[in-house]
């Protein structure tokens, strides 16, 4: 099976269908690329949620604007994807925010290179604390400004980042055969 090393997403300047005016207004000050899946253009992204790509500096500001102006008060998910062949920014960090009244969701992406850092979201959502620690634990992506960025699942002395695609499935264990 070929491993997925490149994102298939296409990025445009036009907001896809289904993005509310409140979101468009909130994101006006930022340079935002809207993501479109080539086979499902109306979805605007994987999983049926509109998605957008922002820069590292805008990452916390976009979420702050969504939270304060568009009432996206809930951080649903926070994770990352590894595309090992994409240069120079290998990782895509994802945050999924939701408006609990309208049930609208927006998946915000940013890209970061290996060894790079993304600003933290812990000042916006307490729940981002453990989520970012998990992303750090699994991918080795740092989050600048995080109060305590240590491994959360794996032992502190664990060697490697398990969800990177170049990490061996069985880890560095010596297996007895």
């Amino acid at each position: 099976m070929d491993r997925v090393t490149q994102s298939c997403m296409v990025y445009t300047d036009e907001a896809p269908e289904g993005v509310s005016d409140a979101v468009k207004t909130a994101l006006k000050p930022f340079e935002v690329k809207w993501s479109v899946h080539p086979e499902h253009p109306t979805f605007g992204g994987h999983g049926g949620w509109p998605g957008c790509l922002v820069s590292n500096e805008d990452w916390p500001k976009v979420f702050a604007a969504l939270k304060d102006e568009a009432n996206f008060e809930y951080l649903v998910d926070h994770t990352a994807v590894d595309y090992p062949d994409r240069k120079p920014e290998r990782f895509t960090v994802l945050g999924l925010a939701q408006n609990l009244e309208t049930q609208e969701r927006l998946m915000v992406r940013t890209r970061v290179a290996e060894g790079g850092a993304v600003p933290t979201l812990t000042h916006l959502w307490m729940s981002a604390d453990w989520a970012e620690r998990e992303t750090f634990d699994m991918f080795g992506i740092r989050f600048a400004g995080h109060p305590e960025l240590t491994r959360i699942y794996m032992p502190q002395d664990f060697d490697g980042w398990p969800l990177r695609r170049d990490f061996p499935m069985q880890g560095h264990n010596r297996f007895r055969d």
Partner: protein
Amino acid sequence: MSEVTQTEMSDLMEASGSSECSILLSTVRAVSSWSRKNSMWPLPLGLSCCGIEFMATAMSRYDMARFGMEVARFSPRQADLLLVAGTLTYKMAQVMTRLYDQMAEPKWVISMGACASSGGMYRSYSVVQGIDEFVPVDFYISGCPPRPDSVLNVLMKLQDKIDRDNTYNLTLETPEPGAAAPLEEQTVLGGRRHGPPIALATAGERFVKPGPQRSMARGVKPEETR
């Protein structure tokens, strides 16, 4: 208690001039083994579905109490038998090693089920491929999970082993002053804890992970974690 034969007992009765014997002769080892095997207090380390089967073993349908084992202790200080039931991850292995170190001698370990014995179907970076990487195991139980009768079978086998066992002698010799300690102190592979490291009294060198020991401090810098 088979140290004194029937003939020897008859001779003793004759020599005492009475047909009623009020003295029962045995050895300290036999008595201590007998009391140990019939008052086994397990520390159940139920890590996954094997823990449910162990609960079934302890409950009234299978009734582990028939063998003097009904007192499941959740403090290692009061337990004789560490029963590891389920999938052991490396993170939990540190906790298990610490629990084992806190148990008083004599102590025994049973590895219950495929996961505890060999990692089972989890051939993965996070799962210990057999708990004997960390603690010495007396018995392995096969099954995924094992049925309660398998557990009872092994518990009875363990009782036989303790009855036969001469590993733990009862000599109460005090070490000579100035004698070298039998085992050098090692840092426990414990989980997060506070306070100074605890010295291992019993764990041999082979059960201590080679290489530098972990730092327990939270707030390890990310670059040091790598």
